[in-house]
């Protein structure tokens, strides 16, 4: 059932190439994070995602990584690779909660996932349910006002169940930068942890920390396009798919 990360990367580029669609570099920067959430934590800690802990992928354009992780966790089968972005497919360029098992929020328009996560935590409290809630946002997504409104809510309601993960893949360097993220999150009362977002051990250790006093912001420092030299930190590849020849070369590189 559980695939290696290289196999998942192969799924991702193959699906993208077949459909001529998808955001591969964004998927590659978050793949290890999703792998730890959907595969490592449930298997090693005997917990069930969306039952024992919650997760929303707010940067929905990373859907390729989400589907790959869902394959590895057994939520969906590998047919998604062939079906990706086809007309009647369940698996689109952004995830649809009404179509994909293991997805609780349809995302795509940025800045929506964090407010929904906050609402889910407040609803949990109303139901006397205490569980860790993860929300993964992109560093570019931090430009959205709803992110900072939500941080204010997290501080006001002391939402220590919240673990906000920032895919810090330097997307902001081409637009508006967030400057010192650690200081910003701290000023909203968050405990801030900065890690290598591709290191499975660091990710596991951080994402399994017990709930304490404050909400947590994990700044996952990642490389956009991590795993394929051509795509790493390349703006050209942000929304581009490999042709047949490129696919063949990249599959070889991922061996």
């Amino acid at each position, binding site marked *: 059932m559980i695939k290696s990360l290289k196999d998942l990367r192969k799924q991702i580029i193959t699906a993208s190439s077949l459909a001529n669609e998808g955001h591969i570099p964004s998927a590659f920067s978050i793949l290890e994070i999703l792998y730890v959430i959907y595969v490592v934590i449930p298997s090693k800690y005997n917990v069930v995602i969306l039952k024992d802990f919650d997760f929303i992928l707010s940067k929905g354009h990373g859907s390729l990584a989400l589907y790959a992780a869902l394959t590895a966790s057994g939520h969906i089968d590998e047919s998604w690779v062939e079906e990706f972005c086809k007309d009647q497919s369940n698996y689109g360029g952004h995830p649809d*909660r009404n179509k994909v098992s293991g997805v609780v929020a349809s995302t795509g328009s940025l800045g929506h996932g964090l*407010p929904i996560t906050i*609402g889910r*935590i407040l609803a949990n409290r*109303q*139901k006397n349910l205490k569980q860790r809630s993860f929300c993964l946002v992109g560093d570019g997504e931090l430009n959205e*006002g*709803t992110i900072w*409104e*939500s941080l204010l809510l997290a501080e006001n309601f002391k939402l220590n169940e919240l673990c906000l993960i920032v895919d810090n893949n330097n997307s902001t360097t081409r637009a508006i930068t967030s400057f010192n993220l650690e200081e910003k999150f701290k000023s909203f009362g968050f405990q801030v942890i900065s890690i290598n977002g591709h290191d499975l051990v660091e990710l596991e250790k951080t994402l399994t920390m017990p709930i304490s006093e404050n909400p947590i912001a994990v700044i996952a420092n990642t490389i956009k396009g991590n795993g394929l030299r051509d795509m790493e930190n390349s703006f050209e590849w942000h929304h581009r798919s490999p042709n047949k020849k490129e696919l063949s070369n990249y599959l070889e590189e991922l061996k």
Partner: protein
Amino acid sequence: MRKKFVISCEKMINQGNDSVVILGDIGVYGFRNLEHQFPSRILNLGIMEQSMVGVGAGFASRGIIPTLHSIAPFLIERAFEQIKVDFGYQKFPANFVSVGASFDYASLGCTHHCPADLPILSNIPGVNLFVPGHSEEFSNMFDLNWNSMSINYFRLSENENNNFYLNKLGEVKKIKSGRKAIVLAVGPILDQALLGLSELDVEIHYINSMPFGSDLKIITDLENIPVIIIEPYYSGPVLGKIQNQTFHLNLKPVQIGVKKDFSLNYGTYKTHLNFHELDAESLSRKVRFLI
């Protein structure tokens, strides 16, 4: 209507644990006792309408139906994309309850006017529109529909009709008989229509809600005459609901609504009615011309 809203919310909260009221720092004083009693179920999230809608969707995703309340332009126009994506696309239930539309907050200026709320919401699949013309209508319709598992929009008005008529989603009620035209008046504009058109040979019907996915049914024997739709907002939503009937009865639709123009004056609700030619005298003049 705002007082009735608080009473209805109290009933809703006391009915069970599957509801929450989310305020955008509006109407907070009216909710003070209820908030004190149920601090986790009456939430004032402050002035962040987009995030407030997203938070509501989070509740809905957990099976708790949110009722979200703020001033119409901020709740609907500012947070339109959140309503569309977080509720419409995701298929989550909610109640959106606004105040201040179209120009109830006349003297506060254009930033607080909102004649576009109903037309733009009618573009979101799954939204039921409620435009009560009387407090009793609001109470009854909210109490019946808050947990209908749909997206409901209730538009609270500061200016009410003298009588209440309808409590059921999608009903149309004939108020007056006549032969030369059918007039459809929506919500709180009915009294202006009755005042202006009482002497005219027109049949007047009243509407205060528009269900998503089904037509409004006008019970009439009349054919081949104008059907004049009077809406206290930008014209549009009603016409789409009567088009089949209009075609079959060979009715000629005419829409009268709020002008597509910023009403830059302050003044009162009445002066804005005059500006938009929705006062009784203007309606009388327009309908006389049409018949």
